[in-house]
């Protein structure tokens, strides 16, 4: 049993800008995390600019991470450069690591940032990554997050991005299962013509608990945001997803859309979705959609004609998701996390088949 004195409760985590009936228990998540252990220490802080960035999991998580992280890492990408190697944030969840990272992407620069959080379930730990990014005018930022943790572990993944004029932000997230995983992502399209694509693919089974908060605030004129989530829930997994497109007053000519597609396989799954559009401007377009269901009878008939059972069909969807994660893992840490989770869910043979095919494709490309 956890020592109560060694933990602290963070409530109203992943709270969206607009909430709904509390009785639905979909407005936020409450997390118990290790208590701030460095009282009296001097915290290593990022430049003050980063403190103004809204992060998806909220202020309480930001405060907790900045006080808990062993260090605060600041990276600057010079103007009009292309950084060839990605900035990698590797979080060993077995060790309960906590990372605090700030990236300043100067005007016209291009960078890829990778967060890889995973472990072997050696210990019941809480890990976290807080990533704050400032994308100056014309910058291009690609963020890839791959999270796959042990069933007794808990991971907090909070991201905040501020994008200036003409900046491009691409966020690709893979939540590949594990005890409790909370993703919070906030992107502010502050500048005119800034664009964001936020994509999440997720898988949760067993008693996994996945909690997601996506917020895109469109403040500049003629901004464009696409948010896509799709995933698979099996067994008794629980998922809550909040996705908000906020069309702020003054964002004339902006377009925002959000769509989620969920396949539910397990009899005891709990699937909550709150897709929100906030609109304080008339000259905008906001759309959202959600589709929740299972493999439909027509799809099943088609697959049955080809000799596939329902279980086979469901397995195909799961395999496709993990294959996508492995293929798109941009560096070794992320790749390892994806392969390890694929092994856990699909077995070592299948995971290594994926891996081999990826290697083959890379070799052919080379």
């Amino acid at each position, binding site marked *: 049993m956890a020592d109560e004195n060694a933990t602290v409760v963070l409530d109203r985590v992943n709270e969206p800008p607009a909430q709904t009936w509390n009785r*639905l228990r979909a407005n936020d998540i409450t997390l118990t995390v290790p208590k701030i252990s460095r009282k009296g220490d001097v915290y290593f802080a990022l430049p003050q600019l980063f403190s103004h960035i809204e992060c998806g999991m909220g202020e309480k998580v930001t405060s907790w991470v900045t006080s808990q992280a062993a260090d605060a890492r600041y990276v600057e990408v010079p103007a009009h450069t292309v950084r060839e190697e990605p900035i990698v944030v590797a979080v060993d969840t077995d060790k309960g690591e906590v990372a605090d990272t700030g990236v300043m992407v100067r005007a016209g620069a291009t960078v890829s940032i990778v967060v890889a959080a995973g472990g072997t379930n050696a210990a019941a730990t809480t890990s976290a990554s807080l990533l704050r990014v400032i994308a100056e005018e014309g910058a291009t930022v690609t963020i890839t997050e791959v999270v796959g943790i042990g069933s007794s572990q808990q991971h907090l993944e909070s991201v905040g991005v501020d994008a200036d004029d003409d900046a491009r932000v691409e966020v690709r997230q893979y939540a590949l299962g594990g005890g409790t995983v909370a993703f919070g992502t906030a992107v502010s399209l502050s500048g005119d013509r800034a664009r964001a694509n936020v994509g999440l693919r997720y898988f949760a089974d067993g008693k996994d608990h996945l909690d997601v908060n996506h917020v895109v605030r469109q403040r500049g004129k003629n901004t464009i945001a696409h948010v896509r989530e799709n995933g698979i829930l099996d067994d008794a997994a629980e998922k809550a997803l909040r996705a908000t497109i906020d069309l702020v007053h003054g964002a004339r000519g902006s377009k925002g859309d959000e769509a989620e597609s969920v396949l*539910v396989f397990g009899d005891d799954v709990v699937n909550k979705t709150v897709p929100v559009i906030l609109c304080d401007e*008339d000259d905008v377009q906001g759309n959202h959609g959600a589709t929740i269901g299972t493999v439909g009878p027509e799809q099943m008939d088609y697959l049955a004609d080809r000799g596939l059972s329902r279980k086979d069909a469901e397995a195909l969807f799961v395999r496709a998701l993990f294959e996508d994660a492995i293929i798109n893992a941009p560096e070794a840490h992320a790749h390892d996390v994806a392969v390890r989770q694929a092994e856990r869910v699909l077995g070592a043979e299948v995971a290594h088949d994926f891996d081999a095919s990826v290697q083959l494709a890379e070799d052919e490309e080379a």
Partner: protein
Amino acid sequence: MTKERTQVADVDRSLYDFTKSEEGYERYADGLTPDIVRAISAKKDEPQWMLDLRLKALDEYHRRPMATNWGPSIAGLDLDHISTYVSPKTKQASSWDDVPADIKDTFERLGIPEAERESLAGVGAQYDSEIVYHNMREEVAKQGVVYTTIEDALHDPTWEPVVHEYFGTLIPMTDHKFAALHYAVWSGGSFVYVPAGVSLDYPLQSYFRLNAQGAGQFEHTLIIVEPGANLHFIEGCSAPKYYEANLHAGAVELFVKDGARLRYSTIENWSKNMYNLNTKRATVGADAKMEWVSGSFGSHVSYLYPTTILAGDRSSCEFTGITFSGATQDLDTGCKVILNGRDTTASVSTKSISKDGGINTFRSSVVVGRHADNARCTVSCQSLMLDNISRSDTIPAMDVRNPTASVGHEATIGRISDDTILYLMSRGCSEQEARTLVVNGFANPVSKDLPMEYAVEMNNLIKLEMEGAIG
């Protein structure tokens, strides 16, 4: 060259904005005390169980906080300045000739007697806290249909046990703070019982008029539609405008038994000083169908989310709603659907229009229970912004706990696109005709579901006056 801006007029409330003197009315002191609750109960000569329920609800009201993290502000509502019971000095009549002249004039201006003559099976008219007129066609009564007030039902030995069995069971007093308030001070409303297999050819209608300044209206509607029966019930409401806050906290409990069908149509046009905190809920049996048609045009603040519980297998519901929010209005409306039976289906389609700084929030929840095999639900929400000082939010929630369920949701927010206007103009429409076409087309799916006289009323409410050329 000066060009006039294209305009969409605000809701025209002149039809509703007239007041009558309260002289001689019985009006209880402002505020909320056990003595006031006892006085209301005594006035109605209620059974002890109802008084006990009222007092328990009063405690619940004081105990229960308002949620602070969602919904429009109700800071301007002060119960210490609201009278919970105002009654004209008249008895309930079954002939309009017996209704006092000023009250009769009010309902004539609202078109109620005329509608009764032409197309209704029965009418109830509430003025402030009491029903002043109630009547039903003889042939309908002969079918065993009961349409009366809750108060009268409580004094009828046949129906008192029925009211006791159903009253407050679908909307518990613990539901929320203003449900508790409702049960403490409810007055007026309707009790409807439709026997098994009886189908009414014409609708029943209740109209609620709140004339008194600084008062509340707390009517309770209890409708039981027995197996295989069929009813269309219409509810209308309005009030004149004051600068003081008024409050409407009614409750509607609908029991739609196996194989029955109930359509519940509402056109709500409260004045802009009204806090409309109303609660409506239906439970639907096997193979039964619930249909909601809802138009929300008035009030300063609204919290309104009719709820349907699809309890029986193969039960279904449709919700069609439109909300128009203009200056000073913050309307938080939508619906809730709970799918618990097998093979249940729900369809939700809503529209909202915001202008002149009005705020519209569409809020919904779809909950699919663990045993709701093959449940199907679609939600469609469209919002139209007519200027850049208004606001429109959509906040739907879905909670799905059955793997065989299929739930779809879609929402769009935007203004009338220039491309659409230009396309229509290229086919010979003027700009004003084009805009009228688009907005009429936007509202049409709702108006076509309303009874004719209400569709006309709705079109009058959203009186669209298009002027000028492209600016």
